[in-house]
């Protein structure tokens, strides 16, 4: 019989005391591991979707909200901005701006957001077309991979959008013409997977019609003539709205930095830097995370203590057994190693259970989050940090079993045996 099996049998012989240590230990490890996973994937998700955006322009309101809605597509937009205000930024010859990406928001289909934008958005998010073609005309859409996958939609499918971001049939734009699926994108892992892309102008027609109907209450309007290739946004006449404009700068010089301040001070719009806002968000989450982490470490420490107590108290009833092993030829070193092994074994099993629970939990959280926020989190990854966690767990097992092991090695065999 090998040493591990011997250890396992000894542990299993005292299930209750060991169970408590194990439950505590796996709870602590699980919590830490879960925090690692969440932290890593949140950061990953947020950073992947920064997409090199230097500045976001939109209606005044919370800058964080504006960033979250325009770039991460969680939260509601702050409002709309007239195209006349941003026309200078759309000029390809602008000295500071390398490129500008319009974003129009407000409608959705079965919970997936419909985003009016130029086809440049594909380059920004490094997306490519998987089948069909890119949207060119109003009311043509190209679907992100997750949208097509979740809703099981194909090229040529038609649907009506609904107002707002909830999957709510009462809010459907019933009087507006159908959207037609023209293409489906490859999976990128970024937020674009979760979007339904169309032209910015489509939004004008959708809401123009809604307003017309509200105003005149006419039953039928023929809108099919809207299915045309729209002008580039910069050439559009009149003062229509888009929701946000995302900017990439040519270089990060003083003037570029100044632009944000001058927009905030001199216009009715606001400009915000995504990296700064996201860092602020992380800082907010960080303090909560810190508290949880401290809690987790305390649980792990307490569980280390409970391993210590479990082993130590098991020695009392095992003293005779240990003496017996000595009589049968086990040296002190072996008894010492035996108890250490029991501590390590407990820690290792606790680590395994905790890690499995954390990944399972992460997968469940991921499913819930992806239903609510259209973000992909997964429990099926492994971080190098978790190896460090294993090392830490084993260290605690080692430390917790050290004194009991020493006690076991020092057992006075003759004394124990003569007491019977």
């Amino acid at each position, binding site marked *: *019989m090998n040493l591990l099996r*011997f250890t396992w049998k000894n542990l299993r*012989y005292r299930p209750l005391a060991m169970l408590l240590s194990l439950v505590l230990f796996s709870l602590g490890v699980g919590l830490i591991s879960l925090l690692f996973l969440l932290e890593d994937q949140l950061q990953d998700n947020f950073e992947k979707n920064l997409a090199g955006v230097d500045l976001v322009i939109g209606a005044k309101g919370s800058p964080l909200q504006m960033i979250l809605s325009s770039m991460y597509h969680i939260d509601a937009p702050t409002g709309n901005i007239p195209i006349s205000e941003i026309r200078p930024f759309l000029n390809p010859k602008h000295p500071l701006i390398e490129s500008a990406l319009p974003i129009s928001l407000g409608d959705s289909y079965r919970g997936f957001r419909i985003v009016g934008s130029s086809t440049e958005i594909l380059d920004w998010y490094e997306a490519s077309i998987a089948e069909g073609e890119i949207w060119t005309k109003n009311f043509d859409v190209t679907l992100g991979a997750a949208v097509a996958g979740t809703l099981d939609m194909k090229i040529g499918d038609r649907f009506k959008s609904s107002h707002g971001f909830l999957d709510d049939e009462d809010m459907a734009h019933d009087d507006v013409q159908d959207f037609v699926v023209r293409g489906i994108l490859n999976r990128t892992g970024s937020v674009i997977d979760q979007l339904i892309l169309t032209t910015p102008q489509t939004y004008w027609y959708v809401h123009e019609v809604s307003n017309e109907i509200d105003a005149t209450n006419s039953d039928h309007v023929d809108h099919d003539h809207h299915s045309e290739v729209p002008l580039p946004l910069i050439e559009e006449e009149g003062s229509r709205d888009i929701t946000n404009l995302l900017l990439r700068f040519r270089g990060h010089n003083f003037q570029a930095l100044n632009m944000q301040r001058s927009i905030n001070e001199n216009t009715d719009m606001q400009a915000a830097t995504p990296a700064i806002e996201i860092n602020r968000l992380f800082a907010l989450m960080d303090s909560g995370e810190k508290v949880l982490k401290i809690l987790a470490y305390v649980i792990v420490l307490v569980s280390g203590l409970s391993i210590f107590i479990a082993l130590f108290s098991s020695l009392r009833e095992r003293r005779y*057994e240990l003496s017996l092993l000595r009589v049968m*030829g*086990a040296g*002190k070193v072996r008894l010492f190693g035996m108890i250490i092994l029991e501590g390590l074994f407990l820690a290792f099993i606790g680590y395994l259970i905790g890690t499995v629970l954390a990944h399972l939990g992460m997968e469940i959280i991921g499913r819930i989050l992806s239903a609510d926020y259209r973000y992909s989190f997964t429990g099926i990854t492994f971080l190098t940090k978790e190896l460090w966690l294993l090392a830490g767990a084993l260290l605690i097992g080692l430390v917790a079993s050290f004194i009991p092991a020493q006690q076991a090695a020092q057992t006075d065999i*003759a004394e124990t045996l003569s007491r019977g």
Partner: protein
Amino acid sequence: MTIVQTKDLSFAYPGGDEIQFPNLAVTDREHSLIIGDSGCGKTTLLHLLSGLRRPSRGTVTIADKDISAMSGTPLDVFRGSTIGMIFQTAHFVRALSVRENLRVAQQLTGRIDDELINQLLERLQVIHKADAKTTTLSVGEQQRVAIARALVNSPRVIFADEPTSALDDANTGRVIDLLIEQADRQSATLIVVTHDQRLKDRFTNRISLSS
């Protein structure tokens, strides 16, 4: 050839008087009885003979090895492989089955011999309990398994500490028969330490300890 020999052996408990033991010389295969009243230091002598305690003076030689000069793991291993011990009450590693207890005893000195284990369990009529936990055994079965364990490494010497003190006459006779028979079959020398006068007639070589 002498298998167990002591010379000028004495032992002192911390703060206690020194106990002096008569010199012993037990020939190989000559089963012996060390007899004395309670409190005369029988168990202490047994512990000295098996290297569980270190004498304050004198030497203990087992199978030509001066174990009073040995210590640490070499002594533990020597004891495990050369000496079989049977205690007044049988104790086992409770987490393990009967067979596993015997295998651990073998493993600690390096060689596992499942065939010998089966033979011993068969001979001692506990083979049907081989895979049972030791806590489910009757007292008689426990004692037989303890004997099997003492024999499992084919020791040269078997020390038995009061193996019969809790038994009635009939069972005492049976256990002593069994011990002698099994020791003979393993070519081991049996040394029984007891105060039990009933055992006197069974041994030709008797050593009396006086308090």
